[in-house]
């Protein structure tokens, strides 16, 4: 029930915000904030004790909920959280609070509907991270798209309509391909075993002919690669990030991209081990191309927000590289990278948002010399730029380092090329700071430094990223059993039987 509570709380907070927000915009903000804070308390109080003392019965799942939903079609309401999910849930709620805090003043119109959308995106993301029924997963996957679309198209910047539609078409068509693949897998499994079910634990280890397995795997892969985003389906990302309001960028970079990485780890490789192994060289090359290409394009941007957006392409390339290397160290690195990229890129978007609020421009060529005016803002920008380039002591370093070590034995050449991406990262990261904050002021800006609220947001993000850089062990410890399970799953480990969900009749009865 706790997992349902986790998802339902933001939904209720969103509804309250929408209803109250028409009269009292302040109430909308507060209901969103309170709902998320309660959700975080619930997650911390409910999940962390389970992490500390896992029960021995339920496999890797720390908490599991299984109910019949549409049993006639073999669809169950199956939610579960393992260490991986727990970490991503906490990341979601933390960044959700950051997003609410940084839209506190930014959103002046239609406040209620804004927070409604924000809360519903978060609920969809929480659902994605906990759903263990493929139909339910797709349900949440779609659920998070629509509010995100509204966030971009209603509260975005100049070119928002184009960006929002591009974003939506890419993710939607890729998502529907995944749905087709899910249904294909459902029938393959059903015909082989007579049990028609969408349950993840049951579908693990479905024997697949090579060609079909590859086709189904690609259906999943495309959906997640678009989200990640991987080269060459990343083209929606710079536009969406640039045009989205700050909150939207934080959610996009910090959380939505992570659902793609999560999908690769949870579904693509465990469900289709053979096909994934065959496909791994291609995916890894795409990942390295993404790393280098993203870094190159980032360096040539003049729009600060677009620059940060391209760094996401580069950083998430590391995650894809690690996932397809599929060994313990690389996966741990991928997880750390997922979290730290969420925090550091989220923070950079928050900083860009603050600059834009003050300067009304995102053009790097018009900035310069801002350090004198806003030393605290400059300091934070410096810190997160350093995090982004992988400075030891900050979280991103741990992630990238683990990934490179993990991947090296499998693909030394690609690892070396990927490491070159790190060099590029230090160039563009320092470039941001140098262009915006140092040098001579190109225009006579008069801006104020951070307010208390803004300093609190960036301070919280800083604390998190320093903690991960210095002491990432709790995260690795939490996720280890989950990652181990994922790596063992394809090897034909007997999957726990789904209870009361799958219909055990023949195909004809099951569907008639």
């Amino acid at each position: 029930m706790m997992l349902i509570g986790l998802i339902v709380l933001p939904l209720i907070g969103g509804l309250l915000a929408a209803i109250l927000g028409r009269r009292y915009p302040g109430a909308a903000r507060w209901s969103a904030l309170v709902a998320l804070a309660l959700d975080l308390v619930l997650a911390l109080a409910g999940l962390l004790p389970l992490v500390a003392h896992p029960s021995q019965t339920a496999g890797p799942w720390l908490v599991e909920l299984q109910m019949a939903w549409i049993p006639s079609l073999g669809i169950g309401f199956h939610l579960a959280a393992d260490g991986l999910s727990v970490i991503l849930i906490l990341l979601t709620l933390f960044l959700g609070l950051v997003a609410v805090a940084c839209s506190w003043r930014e959103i002046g119109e239609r406040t209620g509907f804004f927070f409604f959308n924000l809360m519903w995106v978060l609920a969809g993301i929480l659902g994605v991270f906990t759903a263990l029924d493929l139909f339910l997963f797709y349900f949440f996957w779609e659920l998070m798209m629509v509010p995100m679309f509204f966030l971009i198209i209603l509260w975005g910047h100049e070119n928002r309509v184009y960006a929002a539609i591009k974003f939506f078409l890419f993710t939607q068509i890729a998502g529907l391909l995944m749905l087709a693949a899910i249904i294909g897998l459902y029938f393959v499994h059903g015909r082989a075993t007579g049990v028609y079910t969408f349950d993840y634990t049951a579908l693990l280890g479905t024997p697949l002919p090579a060609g079909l397995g590859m086709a189904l795997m690609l259906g999943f892969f495309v959906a997640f690669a678009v989200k990640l985003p991987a080269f060459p389906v990343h083209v929606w990302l710079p536009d969406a990030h640039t045009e989205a309001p700050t909150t939207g960028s934080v959610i996009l970079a910090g959380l939505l991209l992570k659902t793609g990485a999560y999908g690769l780890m949870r579904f693509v490789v465990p469900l289709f081990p053979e096909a994934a192994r065959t496909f791994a060289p291609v995916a890894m090359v795409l990942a390295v191309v993404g790393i280098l290409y993203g870094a190159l394009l980032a360096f040539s941007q003049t729009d600060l927000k677009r620059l940060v957006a391209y760094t996401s392409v580069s950083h998430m390339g590391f995650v894809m590289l690690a996932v397809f290397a599929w060994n313990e160290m690389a996966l741990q690195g991928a997880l750390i990278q997922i979290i730290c990229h969420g925090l550091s890129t989220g923070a950079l978007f928050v900083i860009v948002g603050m600059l834009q609020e003050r300067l009304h421009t995102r053009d790097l060529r018009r900035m310069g010399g801002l350090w004198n005016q806003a030393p605290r803002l400059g300091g934070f920008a410096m810190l997160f730029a350093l995090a982004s380039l992988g400075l030891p002591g900050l979280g991103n370093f741990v992630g990238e380092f683990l990934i490179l070590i993990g991947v090296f034995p499998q693909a030394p050449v690609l690892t070396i090329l990927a490491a070159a991406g790190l060099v590029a990262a230090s160039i563009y990261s320092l470039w941001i700071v140098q262009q915006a904050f140092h040098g001579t002021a190109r225009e006579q800006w008069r801006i104020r430094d951070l307010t208390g609220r803004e300093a609190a947001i960036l301070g919280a993000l800083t604390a998190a990223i320093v903690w991960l850089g210095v002491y990432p062990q709790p995260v690795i410890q939490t996720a280890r059993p989950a990652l181990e399970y994922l790596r063992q799953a394809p090897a034909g480990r007997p999957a726990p039987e789904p209870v009361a969900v799958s219909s055990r009749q023949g195909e004809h009865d099951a569907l008639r």
Partner: protein
Amino acid sequence: MHFADFMALLPLMVLAAACAAVMLLIAARRHHGLTAILTLAGLAATLAVMPEAARWMPIRITALLTLDSFGLFFIALIVLATMATTLLGYAYFHAWGGHREEFYLLLLIAALGACVLAMSRHFAAFFIGLEILSIALYALIAYPRQRADSLEAGIKYLVLAAGSAGFLLFGMALLYADRGTLDFAALATGLAVPGQERPLVLLAGLALLMVGVGFKLALVPFHMWTADVYQGAPAPVTAFVATVSKCAMVALLVRLLAPLDLAATPALVNALGALAAASMVVGNLLALRQQSVKRILAYSSIAHLGYVLVAILAAGPAFVPAVMFYMAAYTLAQLGSFGVIALHSTQETEADALERFHGLFHQRPWMAAVLTAMLLSLAGIPLTAGFIGKFYVILAGAQSHLWWLVLTLVITSGIGLFYYLRIVVILFSPTPAAQAAPATSGPAVFSGALVLTVTTLLLVWLGTLPESLVQLLQHVTP
């Protein structure tokens, strides 16, 4: 005819009696509210006798009709949609001058024709049902006689429907020439003959038949009338055309095709598959650049019928429940969206242009929320019935390995999202259009609000907890 036949015919008889009663009432006393109430009572009585009729099914009633759970489901859907249309019509015509009462009579007659279609198993019944439905529709579409575009739409529909009826009749004649009977089963026996020896007359007859059916369903390339008729007809009638006449025709098509062994006649599957693919592609593409909500919904309904045809062609075990679920979801969403249009219209202007909906959320938040829910359902977004429906259709298609049709469906419905979301974005845009303040109380508002509330609740209920309906539908055979 036996006692059982009469019992099974009860829904049709009650509906016919309601037609007569409404006609007599209008002759005796013209009263808008009273006529609407009697119409609703007649429809409610039809629903009430259905469980009684259900006790006798499945049953063949003479050579013409049949009653089974499949037909009964569609009759229920038709009657419920007609009730919703009646309520919407009451709200829509409430403030109008002139004769409003015959509207309800025509609605009842059209519903009767639709029910006959859903029950027919013989080409004679098919044609009778079709003509009862069509003739009532001509008058309904052109009901606001003072409006030029309504008259134009009515005439257009009349001419084209009469033409398509000609195709249909000729097709039936060819079929009769070949098989010597007008029973639907004749088609199956005729097609059971292996490839080379199939008589050309039969195939030609089948092709002509499909022209007639394709016209009613507005499949590409027989879709030309759709946008104009949807736009010209008063909104409640558009809702009726989009739901009741489509439901009846889908029921008939399933009955026509279900006995055939589609897997053994790939030519037929390919031909109908081409119609489905063309409908999905053309419908979705043409909807993209429309400036009128009614025209957008018209083109989108072309695409939706293409999706349904994919499920019909699948002909696997999942196809019947998939078709029925999809039609239920589609009917709800169409009733809701045209309901909003009807309630947002005034006597002078139909709420049709996109500008009329600018910032509706700030003026009439509930109506904007309802329309959003309906459009998201048509787009197949989770939490709405349309999502489960689309999933079910893809499931049925994948089960029969119709991969190229499923792929077309996936990609075109991705495109389709664009125009639904375009309307939604307009609903929430910041600057409201200046317009006359709508009425906020009275029976008209109540009846409209009732329809919208019920359809929205059903839409969300089927979208979140579809199990009860899915289970019901899985035991249905045509």
